[in-house]
């Protein structure tokens, strides 16, 4: 008991320590922002459970979850549909934001993200190929294989973008290259989906536009550990990421093994983006917008703060967007990416305008 207490105490002090450097004002801001994000998360979780085509009062929830009444429709809706979907939005949203943060660090480009760089589309292409092949052979695709295929696709796109990035040293060209790769992958995916008219492929179309719908507990059991482990690993990279923010030369001089570090960044950002794509399809703008919102909200770039905050922020952003996607035009569901774009794209425009003004 005491051990646990002191561990919590240590974690708290080290968190405060990290920001105490430049005064209490910043620490207070960070604590307040974390509390704000935490509250937003709780509220959105509540809303996601309660709101929908069947409204479920929150007061009924304990009964639904822990009462023995497993047969009722309300229990079914909460347990088999809304809860797994909610967990997916939370975990995948958090991971997606982290992936964007890593890519922005890697390319030193403020508008890098898994979607604009074509990494999500690469993952999407590989997953659809896998699904068409396996479904065509009459089997169902398991989650691990989906993630693996998505990872291969993500790495292939990332590799291509990196080759192009090394040829042209321009931030804008990097994005153009990524967008083009994304279009090519999407075109091939559409082609595959069009000609594979099998009934089981029908929902592929839905997935390829980005959606958390149809998430099962089996999916959640796979995606959660993958995303959490990857996110914890990212957190452990906080120190070298901080050094890398000063540029490669300085990071090297501080003792960072640049090659190893870059490999770790590529693998982790691709894995995070791939896992999201495997389950929810390509989701736009979360990866770009959330890290910026977080830095703006917390007024810091310290990875030790930004990494956990990005995860929380991504979760909040995706829970909110998914809620809107489900309920805005119910019973028709709109694409998740449409909603994330509506909120994310203006943020990207604001970032670019502000940069321009500063430069």
């Amino acid at each position: 008991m005491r051990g646990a207490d002191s561990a919590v105490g240590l974690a708290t002090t080290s968190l405060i320590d990290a920001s105490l450097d430049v005064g209490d004002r910043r620490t207070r801001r960070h604590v307040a922002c974390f509390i704000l994000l935490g509250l937003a998360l709780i509220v959105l979780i509540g809303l996601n459970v309660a709101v929908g085509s069947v409204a479920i009062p929150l007061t009924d929830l304990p009964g639904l979850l822990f009462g023995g009444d497993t047969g009722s429709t309300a229990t079914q809706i909460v347990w088999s549909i809304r809860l797994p979907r909610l967990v997916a939005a939370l975990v995948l949203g958090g991971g997606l934001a982290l992936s964007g943060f890593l890519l922005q660090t890697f390319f030193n480009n403020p508008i890098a993200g898994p979607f604009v760089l074509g990494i999500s589309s690469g993952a999407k292409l590989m997953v659809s190929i896998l699904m068409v092949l396996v479904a065509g052979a009459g089997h169902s695709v398991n989650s691990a294989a989906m993630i693996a295929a998505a990872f291969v696709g993500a790495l292939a796109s990332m590799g291509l973008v990196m080759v192009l990035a090394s040829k042209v040293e321009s931030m804008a060209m990097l994005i153009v290259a990524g967008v083009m790769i994304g279009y090519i992958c999407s075109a091939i995916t559409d082609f595959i989906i069009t000609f594979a008219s099998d009934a089981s492929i029908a929902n592929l179309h839905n997935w390829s536009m980005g959606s958390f719908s149809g998430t099962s507990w089996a999916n959640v059991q796979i995606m959660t550990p993958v995303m959490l482990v990857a996110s914890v690993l990212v957190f452990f990279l906080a120190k070298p990421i901080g050094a890398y923010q000063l540029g490669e030369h300085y990071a090297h001089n501080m003792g960072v093994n640049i090659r190893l570090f870059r490999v770790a960044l590529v693998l982790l950002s691709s894995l995070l983006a791939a896992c999201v794509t495997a389950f929810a399809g390509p989701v736009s703008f979360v990866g770009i917008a959330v890290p910026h919102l977080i830095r703006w909200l917390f007024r810091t770039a310290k990875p030790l703060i930004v990494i956990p905050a990005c995860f929380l922020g991504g979760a909040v952003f995706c829970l909110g967007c998914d809620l809107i996607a489900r309920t805005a035009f119910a019973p028709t569901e709109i694409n998740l990416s449409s909603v994330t774009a509506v909120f994310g794209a203006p943020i990207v425009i604001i970032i670019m305008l502000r940069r321009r003004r500063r430069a």
Partner: protein
Amino acid sequence: MVRSLTAPPVASTGPSDPDHGSGADATAAFRATQLSVGYDGHPLIDDIDLDLEPGTVLALIGPNGAGKSTILKTIAKYLAAIHGAIHIDQRCVADMTNRDLARKVAVVLTDGLKPDLMTCYDIVATGRYPHTGRFGVLGPEDRAQVRQAMDLLHAWELRDRDFGQISDGQKQRVLIARALAQEPQIIVLDEPTAYLDVRYKLELLAILRQMAKRRGITVIMSLHELDMAQKIADLVVVVDGKSVVAQGPPSTIFRGGRIDQIFGLTDGSYDPLFGSLEFGAPVGDPEVFVIAGGGSGIATYRALQQRAVPFATGVLHEADLDHHLAMRLASRVIAEPAFEPISDASLDQARQSMATCRAVICCLDQFGTINARNQELLDEARSAGQTVLTDVSQLDQVLGTRA
């Protein structure tokens, strides 16, 4: 100061060194032996031999693209040495881990650092990287070091300012504080004075000098300003893109026309005494004769050079400031050995030269014993009806608009 300099491969460096090539000295902070640097296995500069005591200030000079940065990058192990070895504190750099090296060598780079949302304190704190734990959280000792470094560079009051919002001079100070917080034995700086105005330039170099002498930190830097290198460095290494052309204390490097030779100066020359770059003399026969001495002619010489008016001057005394400059700027200099009264021969030469000129400028208000005969010269000019001016600005009316 510099204890031993091994013989450079090309050209001589002046005084020969008895201690050459021998070696191991327990106090050497930095040693490069037979070092070749370059990119992708292709050597750019070969046979660099250096042996520096703690607290040495080394300035690397040479034309643009001569390999100064390549040498600095190799010292920071950002580039691998192609041949030869670097030892820091008797330990071979190639065998050191990045972290170990980071505790010994800190770099200060000029190329624009544009971090987002980092205060100056945050920037300096990154210097503690090799000393902190897994998450880089600063302990009391780290904070004390950051504070000390920022105090030393008068950067503490900048601590809460956004790094992107401060001036170039302030940035440079913060970056040097960052390097200092790393507690290195060697600081490597790439063109630290680029982008700085004169005031910051002086301040910065004074700080570096102080760090080297008081704390025994070895400073290795590339410098654009020859005059600064001449004044601040204990050891100057000159590279020209192929090899180390010369190395030695400033007194041997900045002598005669060596600098002109190394940089291929054809339109002018570097003046080691003034520490200044001077244009060459205007071409042509003298049009103006300048009577000067005791430093009174400097402004006039420069002004004539600027207007591209060839001129003769005299009678000057050797070792006079005017004589020193006139030798670079005048078409003809009539001079007398130092401390000697002006001889008939010199006066005669001056007289002849003056007669061919269209105007005479006299920079002197009064004459002393040793240059009394310049007064004669002036009187002769007046009586011969030559135009005698006291200031260059009057010259335009005399010479008219020049083509």
